Protein backbone atom coordinates (compact mmCIF):
# COMPACT_ATOMS: atom_id res chain seq x y z
CA UNK A 1 0.00 0.00 0.00
CA UNK A 2 1.23 3.50 -0.79
CA UNK A 3 1.98 5.86 2.09
CA UNK A 4 -1.15 7.70 3.20
CA UNK A 5 -2.21 10.43 5.55
CA UNK A 6 -2.40 9.13 9.08
CA UNK A 7 0.12 6.33 8.69
CA UNK A 8 2.25 7.53 11.60
CA UNK A 9 -0.92 8.00 13.68
CA UNK A 10 -1.83 4.39 12.84
CA UNK A 11 1.26 3.01 14.55
CA UNK A 12 0.95 5.36 17.49
CA UNK A 13 -2.77 4.78 18.12
CA UNK A 14 -2.51 1.01 17.57
CA UNK A 15 0.45 0.54 19.92
CA UNK A 16 -0.93 2.81 22.61
CA UNK A 17 -4.33 1.13 22.38
CA UNK A 18 -2.83 -2.32 22.95
CA UNK A 19 -0.71 -1.02 25.83
CA UNK A 20 -3.73 0.67 27.42
CA UNK A 21 -5.88 -2.43 26.82
CA UNK A 22 -3.34 -4.68 28.51
CA UNK A 23 -3.21 -2.33 31.50
CA UNK A 24 -6.98 -1.88 31.68
CA UNK A 25 -7.64 -5.61 31.40
CA UNK A 26 -5.37 -6.27 34.37
CA UNK A 27 -6.83 -3.42 36.38
CA UNK A 28 -10.46 -4.38 35.84
CA UNK A 29 -10.07 -8.14 35.44
CA UNK A 30 -10.94 -7.54 31.82
CA UNK A 31 -14.50 -6.49 32.53
CA UNK A 32 -16.07 -4.03 30.12
CA UNK A 33 -19.58 -2.79 29.60
CA UNK A 34 -20.22 -2.48 25.89
CA UNK A 35 -23.15 -1.53 23.64
CA UNK A 36 -26.64 -2.23 24.95
CA UNK A 37 -25.17 -2.59 28.45
CA UNK A 38 -23.70 -6.01 27.74
CA UNK A 39 -20.95 -7.25 30.05
CA UNK A 40 -17.94 -8.81 28.41
CA UNK A 41 -14.50 -9.85 29.56
CA UNK A 42 -11.35 -9.24 27.54
CA UNK A 43 -8.04 -10.84 28.38
CA UNK A 44 -4.66 -10.09 26.91
CA UNK A 45 -3.34 -13.62 26.63
CA UNK A 46 0.13 -14.89 27.17
CA UNK A 47 1.28 -14.06 23.66
CA UNK A 48 2.40 -10.45 23.29
CA UNK A 49 4.97 -8.96 20.91
CA UNK A 50 6.96 -5.90 21.78
CA UNK A 51 9.39 -3.90 19.73
CA UNK A 52 12.20 -1.55 20.62
CA UNK A 53 14.88 0.43 18.84
CA UNK A 54 14.84 1.89 15.37
CA UNK A 55 16.18 1.09 11.90
CA UNK A 56 18.93 -1.53 11.98
CA UNK A 57 18.66 -1.79 15.74
CA UNK A 58 14.98 -2.70 15.65
CA UNK A 59 14.33 -5.64 17.94
CA UNK A 60 11.16 -7.64 18.28
CA UNK A 61 10.49 -10.00 21.16
CA UNK A 62 7.48 -12.26 21.32
CA UNK A 63 6.55 -13.58 24.72
CA UNK A 64 4.39 -16.63 24.78
CA UNK A 65 5.06 -18.06 28.14
CA UNK A 66 4.54 -17.80 31.82
CA UNK A 67 3.36 -14.76 33.73
CA UNK A 68 6.90 -14.03 34.92
CA UNK A 69 7.95 -13.45 31.31
CA UNK A 70 4.98 -11.16 30.77
CA UNK A 71 6.14 -9.15 33.77
CA UNK A 72 9.53 -8.77 32.12
CA UNK A 73 7.83 -7.61 28.95
CA UNK A 74 5.94 -5.00 30.93
CA UNK A 75 9.22 -3.71 32.30
CA UNK A 76 10.39 -3.51 28.69
CA UNK A 77 7.47 -1.19 28.01
CA UNK A 78 8.63 1.07 30.81
CA UNK A 79 11.98 1.25 29.02
CA UNK A 80 10.41 2.41 25.78
CA UNK A 81 9.41 -0.78 24.01
CA UNK A 82 6.03 -0.85 22.29
CA UNK A 83 3.33 -3.53 22.01
CA UNK A 84 3.11 -4.49 18.35
CA UNK A 85 0.56 -7.30 18.58
CA UNK A 86 -1.39 -9.10 21.24
CA UNK A 87 -3.47 -12.23 21.51
CA UNK A 88 -6.89 -11.25 22.84
CA UNK A 89 -9.58 -13.45 24.33
CA UNK A 90 -13.09 -12.05 24.51
CA UNK A 91 -15.78 -13.71 26.62
CA UNK A 92 -19.47 -13.08 26.82
CA UNK A 93 -21.48 -15.55 28.92
CA UNK A 94 -20.35 -18.93 27.62
CA UNK A 95 -19.13 -17.62 24.28
CA UNK A 96 -15.42 -17.11 23.61
CA UNK A 97 -13.60 -15.40 20.76
CA UNK A 98 -9.88 -15.23 20.20
CA UNK A 99 -7.72 -13.23 17.84
CA UNK A 100 -4.30 -11.66 17.47
CA UNK A 101 -4.65 -7.94 16.86
CA UNK A 102 -1.81 -6.22 15.04
CA UNK A 103 -1.14 -2.71 16.33
CA UNK A 104 -0.04 -0.98 13.13
CA UNK A 105 -2.99 -1.87 10.92
CA UNK A 106 -5.60 -3.59 13.11
CA UNK A 107 -5.60 -6.72 10.98
CA UNK A 108 -6.91 -9.80 12.72
CA UNK A 109 -4.93 -13.01 12.87
CA UNK A 110 -6.26 -16.46 13.76
CA UNK A 111 -9.73 -15.16 14.52
CA UNK A 112 -11.73 -17.87 16.32
CA UNK A 113 -15.41 -17.51 17.10
CA UNK A 114 -17.60 -19.64 19.38
CA UNK A 115 -18.59 -22.87 17.59
CA UNK A 116 -21.33 -22.45 15.02
CA UNK A 117 -24.48 -24.48 15.31
CA UNK A 118 -26.04 -23.85 11.89
CA UNK A 119 -25.65 -26.26 9.01
CA UNK A 120 -25.74 -29.36 11.18
CA UNK A 121 -29.23 -30.38 10.14
CA UNK A 122 -30.12 -31.34 6.59
CA UNK A 123 -32.99 -28.90 6.45
CA UNK A 124 -30.81 -25.87 7.34
CA UNK A 125 -30.56 -22.98 4.91
CA UNK A 126 -27.35 -23.53 2.87
CA UNK A 127 -26.21 -20.02 3.80
CA UNK A 128 -26.91 -20.48 7.52
CA UNK A 129 -23.34 -21.47 8.35
CA UNK A 130 -21.88 -18.42 6.67
CA UNK A 131 -24.47 -16.09 8.21
CA UNK A 132 -23.94 -17.39 11.73
CA UNK A 133 -20.17 -17.17 11.37
CA UNK A 134 -20.18 -13.63 10.06
CA UNK A 135 -22.69 -12.62 12.75
CA UNK A 136 -20.31 -13.94 15.41
CA UNK A 137 -17.30 -12.21 13.83
CA UNK A 138 -19.13 -8.88 13.63
CA UNK A 139 -20.35 -9.19 17.20
CA UNK A 140 -16.78 -9.43 18.51
CA UNK A 141 -15.68 -6.58 16.24
CA UNK A 142 -18.48 -4.42 17.67
CA UNK A 143 -17.19 -5.18 21.17
CA UNK A 144 -13.64 -4.26 20.18
CA UNK A 145 -14.82 -1.08 18.45
CA UNK A 146 -16.64 -0.04 21.62
CA UNK A 147 -13.50 -0.57 23.67
CA UNK A 148 -11.44 1.31 21.08
CA UNK A 149 -13.94 4.18 21.25
CA UNK A 150 -13.51 4.31 25.01
CA UNK A 151 -9.74 4.43 24.55
CA UNK A 152 -9.98 7.20 21.94
CA UNK A 153 -12.18 9.37 24.14
CA UNK A 154 -9.71 8.99 26.97
CA UNK A 155 -6.63 9.31 24.75
CA UNK A 156 -7.80 12.50 23.06
CA UNK A 157 -9.30 14.01 26.21
CA UNK A 158 -7.94 15.76 29.33
CA UNK A 159 -7.85 12.60 31.50
CA UNK A 160 -5.12 10.92 29.46
CA UNK A 161 -2.24 12.46 31.44
CA UNK A 162 -3.55 10.96 34.69
CA UNK A 163 -4.12 7.60 32.96
CA UNK A 164 -0.54 7.58 31.66
CA UNK A 165 0.74 8.09 35.22
CA UNK A 166 -1.19 5.00 36.35
CA UNK A 167 0.00 2.99 33.34
CA UNK A 168 3.63 3.87 34.18
CA UNK A 169 3.18 2.63 37.74
CA UNK A 170 1.63 -0.60 36.42
CA UNK A 171 4.56 -1.11 34.02
CA UNK A 172 7.18 -0.73 36.70
CA UNK A 173 5.33 -2.86 39.23
CA UNK A 174 5.40 -5.73 36.74
Amino acid at each position, binding site marked *: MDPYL*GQTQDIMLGQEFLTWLWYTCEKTNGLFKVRDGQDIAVHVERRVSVQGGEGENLETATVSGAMSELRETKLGLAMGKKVTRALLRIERDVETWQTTLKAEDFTFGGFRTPPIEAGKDEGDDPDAKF*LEKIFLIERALDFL*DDIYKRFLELRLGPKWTAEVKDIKVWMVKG
Partner: protein
Amino acid sequence: MSFIGGSASFTRYRIIDEPPKSLWPEIPDRLKKFPFTDIDNLPEERAWGWVCFDNMIDTEWRTAPPEKAHYIAFSFRLDTRRVPPAVFKKHFTIALEEEERRNKQEGRKFVGKDRKRELRDLVKSKLMTRFLPIPATFDVAWNTEKNIVYFDCTRQKVCDMFLEHFTQTFDLHLEPLTPYFLALNILGTEAQHRIDAAEPTSFV
Protein backbone atom coordinates in the same frame (compact mmCIF):
# COMPACT_ATOMS: atom_id res chain seq x y z
CA MET B 1 -8.47 -19.94 3.81
CA SER B 2 -12.03 -19.38 4.66
CA PHE B 3 -14.31 -17.42 6.94
CA ILE B 4 -16.28 -20.56 7.64
CA GLY B 5 -13.25 -22.62 8.71
CA GLY B 6 -11.82 -22.87 12.21
CA SER B 7 -9.99 -19.57 12.24
CA ALA B 8 -9.55 -16.70 9.82
CA SER B 9 -7.00 -13.94 9.35
CA PHE B 10 -8.60 -10.94 7.75
CA THR B 11 -8.53 -7.24 6.98
CA ARG B 12 -11.52 -4.95 7.44
CA TYR B 13 -12.37 -2.22 4.94
CA ARG B 14 -14.95 0.53 4.69
CA ILE B 15 -16.44 1.48 1.34
CA ILE B 16 -15.66 5.17 0.93
CA ASP B 17 -18.20 5.99 -1.75
CA GLU B 18 -21.91 5.44 -1.12
CA PRO B 19 -22.79 2.60 -3.54
CA PRO B 20 -25.57 3.65 -5.93
CA LYS B 21 -28.81 1.68 -5.55
CA SER B 22 -28.53 0.59 -9.17
CA LEU B 23 -25.40 -1.38 -8.25
CA TRP B 24 -27.10 -4.12 -6.22
CA PRO B 25 -28.88 -5.93 -9.08
CA GLU B 26 -25.71 -5.62 -11.18
CA ILE B 27 -23.45 -7.39 -8.67
CA PRO B 28 -23.66 -10.92 -10.16
CA ASP B 29 -22.95 -9.64 -13.67
CA ARG B 30 -20.07 -7.45 -12.52
CA LEU B 31 -18.48 -10.43 -10.76
CA LYS B 32 -18.84 -12.48 -13.93
CA LYS B 33 -17.21 -9.67 -15.93
CA PHE B 34 -14.05 -9.95 -13.83
CA PRO B 35 -13.80 -13.67 -13.13
CA PHE B 36 -10.78 -15.80 -12.45
CA THR B 37 -9.34 -17.20 -15.68
CA ASP B 38 -7.56 -20.51 -15.51
CA ILE B 39 -3.90 -20.58 -16.55
CA ASP B 40 -3.26 -24.32 -16.21
CA ASN B 41 -2.55 -24.49 -19.96
CA LEU B 42 -1.02 -21.06 -20.39
CA PRO B 43 2.60 -20.05 -19.70
CA GLU B 44 1.46 -17.34 -17.25
CA GLU B 45 3.04 -16.91 -13.82
CA ARG B 46 -0.04 -15.55 -12.07
CA ALA B 47 -3.78 -15.09 -12.52
CA TRP B 48 -6.50 -13.70 -10.30
CA GLY B 49 -10.20 -12.91 -10.32
CA TRP B 50 -13.53 -13.65 -8.66
CA VAL B 51 -15.00 -17.08 -8.07
CA CYS B 52 -18.08 -18.37 -6.29
CA PHE B 53 -17.81 -18.31 -2.49
CA ASP B 54 -18.98 -21.91 -2.27
CA ASN B 55 -16.93 -23.36 -5.14
CA MET B 56 -13.48 -22.19 -6.26
CA ILE B 57 -13.87 -23.55 -9.80
CA ASP B 58 -17.25 -21.93 -10.39
CA THR B 59 -16.97 -18.59 -12.22
CA GLU B 60 -20.60 -18.65 -13.36
CA TRP B 61 -22.13 -18.75 -9.86
CA ARG B 62 -24.06 -21.92 -10.69
CA THR B 63 -23.34 -23.41 -7.24
CA ALA B 64 -24.87 -20.51 -5.29
CA PRO B 65 -25.57 -16.84 -5.88
CA PRO B 66 -23.33 -14.25 -4.18
CA GLU B 67 -26.23 -12.71 -2.24
CA LYS B 68 -26.57 -14.16 1.27
CA ALA B 69 -29.16 -12.20 3.28
CA HIS B 70 -27.76 -8.63 3.45
CA TYR B 71 -24.25 -9.84 2.63
CA ILE B 72 -22.55 -10.40 -0.68
CA ALA B 73 -20.05 -13.22 -0.48
CA PHE B 74 -17.57 -14.26 -3.12
CA SER B 75 -13.92 -15.26 -3.27
CA PHE B 76 -10.78 -13.81 -4.74
CA ARG B 77 -8.83 -16.60 -6.39
CA LEU B 78 -5.13 -16.20 -7.00
CA ASP B 79 -3.17 -18.88 -8.81
CA THR B 80 0.61 -18.68 -8.76
CA ARG B 81 3.07 -20.78 -10.65
CA ARG B 82 6.34 -21.29 -8.80
CA VAL B 83 9.52 -22.94 -9.97
CA PRO B 84 11.31 -24.43 -6.95
CA PRO B 85 14.63 -22.57 -6.50
CA ALA B 86 16.70 -25.80 -6.57
CA VAL B 87 15.13 -26.81 -9.90
CA PHE B 88 15.79 -23.37 -11.35
CA LYS B 89 19.38 -23.38 -10.10
CA LYS B 90 20.08 -26.73 -11.74
CA HIS B 91 18.63 -25.76 -15.13
CA PHE B 92 20.25 -22.35 -15.09
CA THR B 93 23.65 -23.96 -14.44
CA ILE B 94 23.10 -26.31 -17.38
CA ALA B 95 22.10 -23.42 -19.64
CA LEU B 96 25.06 -21.32 -18.51
CA GLU B 97 27.58 -24.10 -19.09
CA GLU B 98 26.17 -24.66 -22.56
CA GLU B 99 26.47 -20.96 -23.31
CA GLU B 100 30.07 -20.90 -22.05
CA ARG B 101 30.93 -23.85 -24.27
CA ARG B 102 29.40 -22.14 -27.26
CA ASN B 103 31.24 -18.93 -26.44
CA LYS B 104 34.56 -20.75 -26.23
CA GLN B 105 34.03 -22.26 -29.66
CA GLU B 106 33.39 -18.79 -31.00
CA GLY B 107 36.47 -17.40 -29.26
CA ARG B 108 34.69 -15.40 -26.55
CA LYS B 109 35.73 -15.65 -22.94
CA PHE B 110 32.76 -14.49 -20.87
CA VAL B 111 29.01 -14.63 -20.74
CA GLY B 112 27.92 -11.02 -20.34
CA LYS B 113 25.61 -9.72 -17.62
CA ASP B 114 22.78 -9.03 -20.06
CA ARG B 115 23.05 -12.46 -21.63
CA LYS B 116 22.98 -14.04 -18.16
CA ARG B 117 19.76 -12.16 -17.41
CA GLU B 118 18.33 -13.32 -20.73
CA LEU B 119 19.26 -16.91 -19.92
CA ARG B 120 17.65 -16.60 -16.51
CA ASP B 121 14.36 -15.41 -18.05
CA LEU B 122 14.53 -18.07 -20.74
CA VAL B 123 15.08 -20.88 -18.24
CA LYS B 124 12.34 -19.53 -15.98
CA SER B 125 9.72 -19.33 -18.72
CA LYS B 126 10.72 -22.75 -20.06
CA LEU B 127 10.35 -24.33 -16.63
CA MET B 128 7.22 -22.36 -15.78
CA THR B 129 5.06 -24.38 -18.16
CA ARG B 130 6.12 -27.59 -16.46
CA PHE B 131 4.69 -26.65 -13.06
CA LEU B 132 1.00 -26.39 -12.34
CA PRO B 133 -0.15 -23.13 -10.76
CA ILE B 134 -0.96 -23.33 -7.05
CA PRO B 135 -4.50 -22.11 -6.39
CA ALA B 136 -5.43 -20.01 -3.38
CA THR B 137 -8.78 -18.46 -2.53
CA PHE B 138 -9.49 -15.60 -0.15
CA ASP B 139 -13.07 -15.04 0.95
CA VAL B 140 -14.79 -11.69 0.65
CA ALA B 141 -17.82 -10.82 2.79
CA TRP B 142 -19.53 -7.51 2.09
CA ASN B 143 -22.02 -6.23 4.63
CA THR B 144 -24.28 -4.10 2.42
CA GLU B 145 -26.04 -2.49 5.41
CA LYS B 146 -22.85 -1.16 6.97
CA ASN B 147 -20.82 -1.02 3.73
CA ILE B 148 -18.02 -2.88 5.38
CA VAL B 149 -15.99 -5.48 3.51
CA TYR B 150 -14.03 -8.27 5.18
CA PHE B 151 -11.20 -9.78 3.16
CA ASP B 152 -9.85 -13.08 4.34
CA CYS B 153 -6.17 -12.14 4.08
CA THR B 154 -3.62 -9.92 5.81
CA ARG B 155 -0.77 -10.22 3.27
CA GLN B 156 -0.16 -6.75 1.91
CA LYS B 157 0.61 -7.78 -1.68
CA VAL B 158 -2.54 -9.89 -1.97
CA CYS B 159 -4.61 -7.17 -0.27
CA ASP B 160 -3.35 -4.62 -2.82
CA MET B 161 -4.31 -6.89 -5.72
CA PHE B 162 -7.72 -7.43 -4.17
CA LEU B 163 -8.28 -3.69 -3.67
CA GLU B 164 -7.47 -2.90 -7.27
CA HIS B 165 -9.67 -5.68 -8.59
CA PHE B 166 -12.55 -4.65 -6.32
CA THR B 167 -12.39 -1.04 -7.52
CA GLN B 168 -12.15 -2.16 -11.14
CA THR B 169 -15.19 -4.38 -10.73
CA PHE B 170 -17.54 -2.18 -8.71
CA ASP B 171 -16.21 1.37 -9.22
CA LEU B 172 -15.97 1.67 -5.45
CA HIS B 173 -12.97 2.52 -3.30
CA LEU B 174 -12.09 0.76 -0.07
CA GLU B 175 -10.33 2.19 2.96
CA PRO B 176 -8.64 -0.20 5.39
CA LEU B 177 -9.94 0.24 8.94
CA THR B 178 -6.52 0.80 10.43
CA PRO B 179 -6.28 2.51 13.86
CA TYR B 180 -6.37 5.97 12.23
CA PHE B 181 -9.27 5.36 9.83
CA LEU B 182 -11.20 3.39 12.44
CA ALA B 183 -10.81 6.34 14.83
CA LEU B 184 -12.21 8.69 12.18
CA ASN B 185 -15.00 6.25 11.47
CA ILE B 186 -15.95 5.93 15.14
CA LEU B 187 -15.56 9.55 16.24
CA GLY B 188 -16.53 11.23 12.98
CA THR B 189 -14.58 13.67 10.84
CA GLU B 190 -15.16 16.43 13.40
CA ALA B 191 -12.55 14.66 15.55
CA GLN B 192 -9.98 14.59 12.74
CA HIS B 193 -8.10 17.62 14.00
CA ARG B 194 -7.67 16.08 17.46
CA ILE B 195 -6.58 12.72 15.99
CA ASP B 196 -4.08 14.33 13.61
CA ALA B 197 -2.65 16.53 16.35
CA ALA B 198 -2.10 13.70 18.86
CA GLU B 199 1.56 13.24 19.77
CA PRO B 200 3.03 9.87 20.83
CA THR B 201 2.80 9.21 24.55
CA SER B 202 6.02 8.60 26.43
CA PHE B 203 5.65 5.80 28.95
CA VAL B 204 9.28 6.06 29.99
